[in-house]
């Protein structure tokens, strides 16, 4: 039960809003972090916390692309396919990942490690092509960079190639 496991966090979330339902998406994130997707039990529990009906929780989830009602891979690779990225090669990048992982967008690898999605604009058009893996952005991608990222993820679960606080073009380096 989320309520026991994340008691403080849930209380903190509820305290931010004067109308309880506002806490719905934040609570769904808590549930999704816990199980990787929003389970039916979680929907019911959250409905109860917020005095909503389960269908109200459900309808909200289905509107948003980031909330999952089914499990996704350990690493969810979302490559932007919108025009700005497509202009500089996102389609071939998707093709590259497809051959690397053997899965098409919408599919997961058999080991459950990777899920590949082609998604719409993620607000990184100046550093295209780009992708998001779980919480992190990876930008100015090349095939070689993608290979390193995938290798990093496989071996360490994370990659140093992910973006830091965003700025492009970069600021001039401090003079030593």
């Amino acid at each position: 039960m989320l309520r026991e496991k994340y008691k403080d966090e849930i209380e903190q979330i509820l305290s931010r809003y004067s109308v309880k339902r506002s806490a719905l998406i934040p609570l769904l994130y808590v549930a999704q972090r816990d199980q990787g997707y929003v389970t039916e039990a979680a929907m019911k529990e959250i409905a109860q916390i917020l005095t909503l009906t389960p269908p109200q929780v459900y309808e909200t989830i289905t509107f948003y692309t980031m909330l999952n009602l089914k499990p996704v891979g350990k690493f969810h690779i979302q490559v932007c396919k919108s025009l700005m990225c497509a202009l500089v090669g996102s389609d071939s990048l998707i093709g590259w990942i497809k051959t690397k992982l053997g899965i098409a967008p919408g599919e997961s690898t058999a080991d459950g490690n990777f899920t590949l999605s082609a998604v719409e604009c993620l607000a990184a058009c100046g550093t295209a092509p780009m992708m998001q893996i779980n919480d992190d952005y990876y930008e100015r991608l090349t095939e070689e960079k993608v290979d390193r990222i995938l290798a990093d993820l496989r071996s360490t679960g994370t990659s140093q190639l992910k973006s830091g606080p965003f700025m492009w073009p970069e600021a001039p380096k401090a003079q030593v």
Partner: protein
Amino acid sequence: MMPSTTTETVRLTIDGATVTVPKGTLVIEAARRVGVMIPHFCYHPKLKPDANCRMCLVEIEKMPKLQTACSTPVDEGMSVRTATTVVNDAHKSVLEFILANHPLDCPVCDQGGKCDLQDFSHQYTATTSRFVETKRIFQKDYFSALIETQMNRCVQCLRCVRYCDEVMDVKALAPAGRGTMTEIKHFGPHPLDCEFCGGCVQICPVGAITSRLSMYEYRPWMLKRAETVCGYCGDGCQITVQTKDQELIEVNSAHGAGRNNGDLCARGFFGFHAASHPERLTHPLIRRNGALVQATWEDALEFVADQVGKIKAAHSGHSFGGLISGRCTNEELYLFQKFMRVTIGTNSIDSSARYGHLNGLQAMRRVQGTHRWTVSFDDIVAADVLLLVGTNITESNPITGLKVKEAVKQRGAALVTIEALEPAIDTISNIVNLSLHHFCVPATHMRDTILGLLKAVVEQNLVQPDLMQRQPAYVSAVTRALQQISWQDLQAVTGTDTAFFTDAAKVLAGGQRVVILAGQVLLRSERGYSGSLNLLDLLILTGKLDQPGCGFAPLAEENNDQGAVEMGAVAEFLPGPCDITSRADRDRLVTRWKEEPPPNGGASLVEMLDRAGAGILKAMLIVGENPVGSLPAQVRAEESLRKLDLLVCQELFLTETAALAHVVLPVASSMEKSGTFTNTEGHVQAVRPSIEPVGESRPDWEIFVALSILLGSPLEYAESKEILKEIRSLIPGYGSLGPAPVLPRVDRTAVDCYLGDGYQNDLTTRYRLDAPKSRPDGTVQLELVQSLFHSGKLSTRSKGLLQVEGSGVLRINPLDSARFALVDGDRVRLSNAHGEMTTKVKVVGRVPQGLAWFPDHFSQAATHLFDCVIDPVTHVPSIRTTSVSMMKVA
């Protein structure tokens, strides 16, 4: 929020025609006034405008873009054009969009012939579509066994979803997904679990949501329609019954129709098949050699007349008793009592109004001199403060419940509730979720809670100052009585502290239009009568009793309980109702009847059974009632009835009681006859037949007529209208059949009389707390409750409702389920000194801790566990609560 008394108006022109409408009116409604129908899908007068379909675009002068008529309020001097080329093109194009993904499967769609999309398409579009792409396809789905969805037809107007939320407060439907892939769904992989009001089916402008009870069979134009009134609860909803020959196909209710304004509940919408149940009695039965065998009407009636004559000759009319159901028409109720009083010569008659409705009604008579509400449904909607006491309103009076929801949700009324209900969200709306001040108390302490409110009123100086001046004795007597009660004791029995009472009392006293609704949980309890009186005291003390829009409204459970009393189908009242002892009223009756009813001394329900048991009563005529199935063992109904020399039952089905009868006469259901019903607010409405009487059954009134003739004191009427005419001669204007009830006003003389010394005799007993009952470990308080999906036992013969709720399940609170280590579906044994039963349990959040609810409608196995306490004044037997120990069984 105060409803403004003067409505400002606005003048505008629509297609050149000038119209004046109240400020705030929407353009689409203003257009309707001048006969212009602006095409629309998502708009519905019951719902907040959502303007999503974009069908209702119109031109409004000075606005650059086309505007949606459904969401634009009128403005002074506005000029609207609804039929220009631009507007027409817009309508065409919106339709083209809506039709793009539509499957155009009209030939197999149940909406065919009554579909908005079909109608507008016919009006606007070309016959060929430019859409050549792939249509999106949704799988056909079933919301439940009763509702089928075909979402390819959906126009995504969200009317169903909005209705379910805004009107019903159930929120069971979810628009899932987004864009064209949005699909109306219910929760997860489970079947839809909701109130089954049928609202989504009714409000869908296309054939996306349809009832499975009437599918794929008929086109609207093949069906015959009858406008009639639902025969289940006291709300008295107007329904349209659609039939094909003798087959009942569908029930619905048009927006604007009846007191229900088109809304229905599960019983009304899905429960219409009871009449056509295969077990309907179709022939008279006579007991021969111990068994009931088929007979002809002639034989049966002659047999009855013969026996009646013999018994009457031997033991006089007083040895007869009669019992009739409040489900009969006014005409039948009237004729029944006339038959019993005049032809037979007894006042021992009773009806189902005795089960509780009389408690509220007697209280009104005593305090305010009316036998009806002084408010109507419209006053509930317009109220600014509502107090609900023991109503269980959604389950018992769902449509009255909708009025309360409307008042609270749409108009911001403040709601105070005293209910045996926990606030909880589940699949049925819960009125206390909308409550500002909720007192969660069991029936046994409802009156105590009322006393708490009264105490807060007097202590907080909320008593109307004028009343103190005019009736100091009354005020100080009540105040003194309330001072005897301590807050500690009140807190102990109600579990609520002083401040909460005080706050709620302030809300009540501060309201301008205050309506108090009392329901069966209170009215059928031991404190039903005294609690009602105390509620009336509350209105008096706060100065509301005679104020416009204010009043006390006890809710009738059965469709015509109110009519039963008004027709005099209870021992103590002659038609009117008039006191049986009132000389003037008797005289009026005699001029009409040319005969004098017996003077007095009629027995009520339980007394009749006692007299039968004692051998004093020799014969009974029971019409549509089933005392053996309904009364607790303590009353010994079966034993007593078996002693009768003659038991005649007029019935639809062979009930436990009918099975004991010497003669059983098959009768027509309310789907098969004409007459009138009087609903809970006192509105008299026409009942019209939709089918011919099933088998050889006859309307009850015809049987009374036939018997009276055979008995040589003919009551002759050729049709029920003639009976109504006679009723009107006794009760002037009865059933003017207008759109709304004609409300009585509080009778000043009666009030003065009550305030003078009428309040005195039982004041101390009414103003006393009931001692908290200690409940031993391992026990729960078992209550018989009303279910939303049934009404009495008749609905348990309806296949639609049986699909929603097919058997009796004991509902318990989650804490009790933990205490007794029970989960959904476990079986328990309930036992007490009277006996035992086993049943399945279901854990339901709304049931308060310590209570266990069993649905009245499946109570045959449970009735023997209950106690029976009879009110000394109103003779109402309270039979709905008892204490049982509960144990899990394998």
